[in-house]
């Protein structure tokens, strides 16, 4: 079956991203496909390549990156909502350049895109599961 996942909260503050990761891993292990993971609201903060968790704790960002969810064109299907990301200070190289900001912090396993990608995920997938506050 084809699943998509919406994540509304950031790493370490809420369990949402951890639960979603465990769910995604189990779905893949059971032979299902993850069509897309859409990071919305504070969920966009899961995409930071700047994270430095304590050595005895899990690395939430890297866990997602290691699932390596991509589409047939090889693009990441860990998708970060651009509107939610920009106000919260999550930038990729192209947005940083466009806005004249020095630096960027989106992990390369993720990509920034519009909210339409969430609707499309709902249309294309057999199931969409939301994890949030």
């Amino acid at each position: 079956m084809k699943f998509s996942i919406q994540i509304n909260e950031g790493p370490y503050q809420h369990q949402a991203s951890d639960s979603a990761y465990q769910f995604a891993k189990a779905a893949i292990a059971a032979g299902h496909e993850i069509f897309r993971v859409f990071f919305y609201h504070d969920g966009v903060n899961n995409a930071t390549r700047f994270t430095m968790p304590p050595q005895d704790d899990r690395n939430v960002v890297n866990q997602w990156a290691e699932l390596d969810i991509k589409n047939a064109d090889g693009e990441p299907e860990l998708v970060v909502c651009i509107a939610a990301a920009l106000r919260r200070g999550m930038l990729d190289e192209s947005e940083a350049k466009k806005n004249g900001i020095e630096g960027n912090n989106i992990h390369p396993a993720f990509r920034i895109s519009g909210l339409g990608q969430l609707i499309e995920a709902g249309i294309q997938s057999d199931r969409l599961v939301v994890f949030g506050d």
Partner: protein
Amino acid sequence: MAIKKFMYLNRKASYGTAYAIESLEVVLIAAAFDQDVSLAFIDDGVYQIVEGQNTDGIGMKNFSKTFHALGDYDINKLYVSAESLEERGLTADDLMPLVYEDEDDDWEEKPSVKIVSNAELTKIMSEQDVCLSF
């Protein structure tokens, strides 16, 4: 591809958290896709469409007027829980008069908001293909 039924489940008041404004942002985008869209306002979500919101005193953006735009985008199924309203001492008169123009009825202006019992809401939810929660 068959049209899917999308429900947007709104259970939180505006301003205290971003869920209300960012839910509305999705709904406006959803209009561009040719799907069947419903919004449910349950619990404190009913405060999102209370008339007369004024954010001058808190320095945040008052986005409540944007709900009036939904009708223009053919989003006209806004279900409000009657029980949630009543518990909160609110009535239909406290809500914004959100309307749409019905193209199947000579563009007559009709209300978008329907106040429904939890029993009716249960039935409506049962028919959905996708539920986005905020």
